[in-house]
Each structure stands twice: as structure tokens, then as C-alpha cells.
């Protein structure tokens, strides 16, 4: 279970429920919804009030994944989605105390 949760850093986020928990821009805190698209630097989140584009860098997100809630820093996912498979696994392999 833990290893599948770890893979969140390397997988695609489209379709996942997400909430912005920390951000240098206070107006972004609390933005919650489903991720509809993703680029290298941003996440496009469909909220009740419409589509919001949120930068990844410097933000912290709460993600609902596999019936668990995970808190993840945007700095760890600041790659192109297609690159993240390789880079995400690389980050996990390099991190200490993590079994991949």
C-alpha cells in the first residue's frame, strides 16, 4: 500500500481530487477540485467556481488517492507529466529511508 502511495509522485494526476493547502499567494489557499490538465509548471483544477490554473512550485497540495489523503509539495512534481514517470522514480530512489 505504501509503495503504491509512493508512486503518486511518478504518476499522472489527471482525475485526482486535489486541494491547495499552502501557497505564497494567499488567495490560492483553499482551491479544491479535480485535476483536468497538467503542464510542467501548473495544474489546471476544475473547482465549483470554474477552472483555476495553479502553479506547482512553492505550493503544497492535499491529494486524495487510494482512499488515503496525502500531503505533497509541488516542488517534487515540477516536471512534465511524461517526464515525471522517470524523474519521480529517480527522486524516490535517491531519497534516504525510502524503499522502491
Amino acid at each position, binding site marked *: 500500500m*505504501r509503495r503504491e*502511495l*509512493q508512486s503518486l*509522485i511518478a504518476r499522472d494526476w489527471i482525475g485526482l481530487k486535489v486541494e491547495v493547502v499552502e501557497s505564497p499567494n494567499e488567495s490560492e489557499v483553499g482551491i479544491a477540485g479535480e485535476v483536468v490538465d497538467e503542464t510542467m509548471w501548473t495544474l489546471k483544477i476544475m473547482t465549483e467556481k470554474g477552472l483555476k490554473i495553479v502553479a506547482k512550485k512553492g505550493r*503544497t497540495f*492535499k491529494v486524495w488517492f487510494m482512499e*488515503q*489523503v*496525502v*500531503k*505533497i*509539495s509541488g*516542488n*517534487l512534481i515540477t516536471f512534465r507529466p511524461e517526464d515525471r514517470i522517470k524523474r519521480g522514480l529517480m*527522486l*524516490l530512489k*535517491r*531519497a*534516504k*529511508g*525510502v*524503499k522502491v
Partner: protein
Amino acid sequence: MFDFIRFTPTDLPDLGFKSYVIFDGKCAIALTANNAKELREKLKKIKDNILVGVVGKNPEVCREAIMRKKVDILLDCIERELDYATIKLAAEKDVTIELGLSKFLKSNRSERLKLFDALRTEIKVINKFDTPFVVSSAAENMWEMRTRKQIEMFFSFFGCNILKARKSAERVVRRYFDKNYIMDGFEILE
């Protein structure tokens, strides 16, 4: 704030620490080696999921320890000499450097002054490269233990950023003793 000690204490008063990391071989282990080859052989025998500290008595062992993924913390001792390149490498490889108080208690006069000088240089380089570091008593017996405030005040006099030290200590401990912590910036909430 956590204290990193080398013995198993009994009946301790409240010294202001959240908890103690004891290098007794069960949840944390301290390795000593005379050369790089010996260190490599000892590291091969260690299982995963244990906090590994290396007592670097010579620069060769320190450098080898920092290059190893299994090593989490470079423990302090009187003979340890950290140079510019080693501290820079520690920042890149995410190996925490321990700044211990016990070597100052054990030393005298001119030897202690030399240690102060070396400490000041090390702290300058640590601050430059933002190397993870912790401050602790590095106690080998109960007489070398000090309160949290005493240790923090001592090292802050030499220019240590105590908040960073606390954060680094928490990171190292959470890696192995918190089930919800995966890595920096990534943790399970519910």
C-alpha cells in the same frame, strides 16, 4: 528537538528534549572504521530501516560515509576533521552532520581552543552550503548530558541556526520512526 546519545540512559530528568536517539544497535547504530574498506564491509551487514551513524575519525572515512546512501548522519568525535569539500558533498548527498558538545567537555586548554576554531569554520561552511546538521550532547555517559537550552545556546554563540538544526533532527528521526512520513514534502495524512 532530539538528542543523539551513545549509551542507554536510566532515570533521566526532563532536560527539555522531545526524545532521545540512542545508538545501541536496535533502532540506530553507530559505526566506527579505520579506513574506507572496513566501513564498506560493515555497511554491507546492516539491514535497511535502521538509522545509521558513522563516527568519522579520519577524512577518508568521512568522505566514504557521505558517499553511501545507507549513512544518515556523520557523528561527532574529537578526531573528526571536516573539510570544505566534505561539507559541500554532505549537502549534495543529504547526509546530516552532527555537532556534539561532549568533545569540548573532554578536552583542555589549547586543544579546546583548536576545537572552537574548527567548529567556527565548520559552521561557516555549513551555513554557506545549507548542509543539514544537528546539535546534540553526543554523550557517552550521563555526566556528559546537558539540557536542550544549554546545548542550543552554546552552538548559537558560534553562529548556528538552531531552527535549522531542529528541523534537520526531526527529518532524520521521522524518516525511520514515523510511518506516515515518506520523504521531504511527501507524507500521508489520513
